[in-house]
């Protein structure tokens, strides 16, 4: 049967500092592109409709739900995911603080929270509790009640100063 064959699109993009050329179907989300085409699965799917934040990535300095962005939209852009946070020298202070403060239980929400929180601390080194809660309002966590996540972000902000 003749399906209307849609052609894949070549996209040049930078992911965690590494420039790459990838081929994506034009209807596929950035989330699926990262997970299925690029093959990095740290970015998680919780809802696929922009309401949980598990898929949060940093796109040219802004945090976005990668399930709401198309893979073809990232031509020429800079994407940062959870996989890009630690360096060969060690964890990012946020990652370290999440471990020390027990800010994760199941951990499925953690990549999204880390990417969101990093964007906050990149711009505001010393946010208040209120500000942290506002900033993280787009990330759902069902396990922790947020208490330890908020504390971990606050701790990382103090330590990275």
């Amino acid at each position, binding site marked *: 049967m003749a399906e209307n064959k849609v052609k894949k699109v070549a996209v040049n993009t930078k992911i965690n500092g590494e420039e790459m050329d990838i081929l994506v179907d034009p209807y596929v989300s950035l989330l699926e592109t990262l997970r299925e085409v690029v093959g990095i699965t740290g970015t998680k799917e*919780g809802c696929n409709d922009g309401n949980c934040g598990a898929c949060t990535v940093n796109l040219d300095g802004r945090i976005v739900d990668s399930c709401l962005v198309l893979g073809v939209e990232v031509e020429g852009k800079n994407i940062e995911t959870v996989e890009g946070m630690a360096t060969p020298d060690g964890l990012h202070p946020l990652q370290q603080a999440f471990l020390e403060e*027990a800010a994760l239980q*199941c951990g499925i929400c953690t990549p999204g929270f880390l990417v969101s929180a990093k964007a906050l601390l990149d711009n505001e080194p010393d946010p208040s509790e209120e500000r942290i809660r506002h900033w993280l309002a787009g990330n759902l966590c069902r396990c922790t009640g947020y208490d330890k996540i908020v504390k971990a972000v606050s701790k990382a902000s103090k330590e990275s100063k």
Partner: protein
Amino acid sequence: MVSTSENKNYKVIGTRPIRHDGYDKVTGRAQYGADIKLPGMLIGAVLRSPYAHAKIKSIDTSEAEKMDGVFAVMTSKDLPRLGDVVRGNSEESGSEKHLSENVMAFDKVLYKGHVVAGVAAKDQNTAFEAVKKIKVDYEVLKPVINVDQAMAKDAPILHEDYTGDHLGKKVKNSNVAAHARHEVGDIDDGFKKSDLVVEKEVDMQTVHQGYIEPHSGTAVWDEEDRVKVWTSTQGSFSVRDSVSKVLDLDVSRVKVTPMEIGGGFGGKIPIYLEPIAAVLSKKTRRPVKAMMSRTDVFDATGPGPGGKVKVKIGIDSEGKILAAYADIRLEAGAYPEAFIEAAAKCVFSCYDVPSMKIDAYDVLVNKPSSAPYRAPASPQVAFATETVVDEICEIKGYDPIDFRLMNVAEKGTRTALGPKYRTIGLKECLEAAKNSNHWKSTLDSNPSPGKKRGRGIASGYWFNIGFKSSVNLSLNPDGKVALTEGSTDIGGSRASIAMQAAEVLGIAAEDVRPSVVDTDSIGITDVTGGSRTTYATGYAAYNAAHKLIEEIIEKAAIKWDISEDQIEYSDGIVKSKTDSELKMTLKEIADDPPGGPIVSSASVDLEEAGGGFAVHIADLEIDEETGKTDVINYTAIQDVGKAIHPSYVEGQMQGGAAQGIGWALNEEYFMNEDGVMLNSSYLDYRMPIALDLPMIDTIMVEVPSEEHPYGVRGVGEPPIVPPVPAIGNAINDALGLRLLSTPMKPSRITEALKRKK
């Protein structure tokens, strides 16, 4: 932290090491259910019923089969048809049949989202397109979506072939799968002697566990009829059992490898997609992975039962409870099991009552088959009981903590099901609540025009199961210990289990490396659920560590050629009791031990861990115009027995409280009369976000359980029990309104305020 145990000098227990699996989880390396990719893997998708109740007349899959990129299509014809497994009386009858029908409908769909067919295709998009081409001819029936509809005369019947058990009588053609009763003492006499009798009925809407990771299932069915399954589950062995039943295979033909699990709360005990992926793999001889969308998760998994609970309590003139009655009607969903026995066990669990009677009904409705949700059925019944207790205190002017202390359940108190309590710590929790800064603080009841504040308190219980667990230890040549276990780790249990082995061995928590392994690699281990993991698998680790020490001593005896009773072990050193020259570190003994490597294993099958109680205090601020409710202060107090890793114990307490707050204020299955859930997305099924909650203070009370060497009790479940009534009681304190339905959402509050005026 309040502790009644003399502070034993633990070296590892009670400390807060970084969890062993933490690094993988903060770097994105950890592999969850959907992250698996196998060579040649196909993607599975399923067709779900748009109707909540219908007969399947025919299914035409021919168009889907013809599509490019489609490798296989299946229906329930491809599954063995399991007969009613009637094991004696009807209690368990049909459970295997129901297990398989819930995976894929045979003759009838019983809820919207019930699976009717499956497809394996080259990619997700093709699979979705193919599913749309499957044609199903339904005869649509009227659904019943709550207990009143289901129990009404002439209600449409879900299971014509099912025999219900009504107080021992076998009943056909009823949506009541079971009616059970428990009785202690004479309530008629108790109520007659009562000075005050208060009765309330609460109505709870269906809720969902809401774990962020949707379900998935990946399988390979090989030429030898062996099925390998990878899935995110609370129990790899229960998946093995269920999959082998549904596929009619011996259990040893099924091997389940647990992936990391992105939350469960009870909802990841049942199986859904695993057998479908397996059958599609059998047809294609390729690995098949199937995943759910968030809407699928809401429509077809979970939920925690809704229902109605009526509670009546009578007290004498001194405030002593004389009699208590409960009528509990909970939604089982499409197949029996609404946790009514648990409900009965929990409903009056916090009180010492001389006469009690409970009628409990397990009611079939056209909703997805209920799964356990954190202390299943306990929040539903606590809402009723704790509201009645609050009302008694209000009428009589009792302090709510003093009233509870006066009637407190303790060791030796007879419970509603009959047995007496062993050591429990409710009294200590209530005292800790009374002494807390939160309870002692004052709350400004009217902080600004149009805003009212109120404080509520409630208690709750879960009984904490035991069951089977297995642990293997192996001493590595560097003196560190590898630990393998079968309990999937949802929230730090690798750490809490490894820490118990480390404590016995007297080495650092980091020097015990835990791995969660597949069902072929460890002895049977029951689900991570029922708050049993740190207790039971931890107990197995404790026993295995003691056996490892025996092994170490045995090998040292051979090496030194002295008798074993001349040798002692402590803190990683094995030494002669008499000759100070004879001494080895773990590394030294592990280096080429005589007679082979040093290993041990242990398994347990335990009784209940000893009940866990929680007391929560909630302060609310309510906007009278909009009905918006903010939780401004919250304290969770709980008897945790012994906190192995206090951070993760606090985390369980905070997480449970947060889920309970969501349940109280926002969460519900909003269904139309056709049985279609209208809010099946996170946008509309509104779970608490960071902005909705205050810091949740925790007070861990430690009354050690009699059943565990370190006194561990389960901690995961009690904290979801008190929040709903604590919030209801706080609303009453603020507004003088008893809201008796969940969720106590803004519109309910404003309507009730209007009615009051």
